[in-house]
């Protein structure tokens, strides 16, 4: 009994990681950059929804939509201003810029909203699922998050596989010069990637804060890192990998808290990650790229 409910909790936490990781992996897979600011876009998304719903009394759906729009615009703007000039620069330069953007977003939020914690009102209205004489409770948030993950994952995979823009993204990710020669507009494609990634971030932010309602300017940073780990776990760049990685990470975290040590849970999560990578150096579902000599 205990185990099952830990498992459910793990999936619940994991689905949040998965949702964030999907956005991470999307941007990484195409733009080949570790967007360390992703977690902070999530935080902004949550604040926007918070302001709309709790501050201005809009209905939750409108709040979520506003948040998606705001984050999409934000993501595209960030890309345009901070990352685009560095298209040809080293990966490290872009990484550092992303870190700068992360600091920037945190401090902007701090100036606008202050450091005080806000309590986020859940946007999920469906009731919790109670099983086995109420012993096992699956919250509405968990259900919505898992379902959202699955839909987004399926959507992204279909998009990448069958749409023209999806194929353009794959081409850009491999060789943007050659992609241009195919007639692919590289800037527009990368902007689209960021738009999608940031829209996902907004959804992730709203759902994360619905499950874990304390909102501060730093809310996004640790889950951001964890989701990054989840994405790598599953094989960074792989969409189903991000989902599986996220869920597994959540489950491992919760189970090690429950059965080993709540203080060492993070250490255990990281240790498992290391072991997985040693066995499968490109993550669970990552493509093994062999260099042809």
């Amino acid at each position, binding site marked *: 009994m205990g185990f099952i409910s830990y498992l459910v909790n793990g999936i619940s936490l994991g689905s949040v990681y998965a949702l964030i990781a999907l956005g991470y992996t999307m941007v990484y897979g195409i733009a080949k950059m570790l967007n360390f600011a992703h977690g902070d876009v999530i935080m902004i998304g949550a604040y926007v929804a918070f302001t709309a719903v709790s501050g201005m009394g809009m209905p939750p759906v409108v709040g979520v939509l506003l948040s998606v729009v705001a984050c999409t615009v934000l993501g595209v703007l960030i890309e345009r201003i901070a990352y685009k000039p560095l298209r040809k620069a080293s990966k490290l330069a872009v990484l550092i810029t992303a870190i700068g953007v992360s600091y920037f977003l945190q401090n902007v939020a701090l100036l606008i909203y202050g450091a005080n914690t806000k309590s986020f009102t859940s946007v999920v209205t469906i009731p919790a699922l109670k099983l086995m004489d109420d012993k096992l409770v699956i919250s509405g948030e968990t259900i919505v998050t898992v379902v959202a993950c699955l839909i987004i994952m399926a959507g992204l995979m279909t998009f990448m596989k069958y749409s023209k823009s999806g*194929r*353009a993204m794959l081409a850009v990710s491999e060789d943007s010069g050659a*992609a*241009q020669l195919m*007639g692919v507009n590289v800037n527009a494609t990368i902007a689209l990637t960021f738009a999608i990634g940031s829209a996902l971030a907004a959804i992730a932010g709203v759902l994360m804060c619905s499950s874990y309602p304390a909102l501060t300017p730093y809310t996004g940073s640790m889950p951001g890192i964890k989701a990054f780990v989840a994405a790598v776990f599953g094989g960074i760049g792989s969409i189903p990998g991000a989902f599986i990685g996220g869920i597994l990470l959540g489950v491992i975290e919760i189970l090690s808290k429950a059965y080993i040590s709540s203080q060492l849970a993070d250490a255990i999560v990281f240790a498992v990650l290391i072991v997985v990578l040693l066995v499968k150096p490109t993550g669970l579902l990552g493509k093994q790229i062999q260099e042809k000599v």
Partner: protein
Amino acid sequence: MAMLEVKDIQVYYGMIQAIKGISFEVNEGEVIALIGANGAGKTTTLQTITGLIAPKHGEILFEGQDITKVPAHKIVSMGMAHVPEGRRVFAQLSVLDNLKLGAFTRKDKEEIEETLLRVYKRFPRLEERKNQMAGTLSGGEQQMLAMGRALMSHPKIILMDEPSMGLSPIFVNEIFDIIREVSESGTTVLLVEQNAKKALSIADRGYVLETGNIVLEGDAKMLLDNDQVKKAYLGE
């Protein structure tokens, strides 16, 4: 009016000037050969034409339209294809996906399908390997893919950068046959080659590039007989 006109372009890599002001033109239906030693600037010229590199000075006209500042992807959709140096196939995509990307600028599904069949007919090996990851193809196979991919866009003009590099003798002949066929089917060709003899033998006209300057130009037959060319590029 020439299909493609290059007017006095100069190109720099940082402070280094790679192209020092060259002009030439390509007429519709022609095969033009651009030859020259290593590092003469042939690749740079082609990349400048397709908009991958911006020239510091000069003008490029395609069908009378100034494309000097037009981004590469728009130039491609205007009907120019470029088979890049070193093939640059999308290594982690399948052969078929690579070909489909070639037709990225085209809309009509049926026409694309038709072109695909024609490409398969010309390169049966590609159909055989259509689901293989492009990166694991051998050098020659990759070259076929690069050519096939360019043809998928159904271009008015095709720019080829050393298509025979690294190919077996039999295949070199085949590639030149294909270039001739492509030309005969109405596509204009601008061909960059180390294999000057073969290139000039199928070309209508040719230009000789030396350290960023055009030093010789004229009828292909004439260039083949030119002593200077013979000595420097034909190894005779």
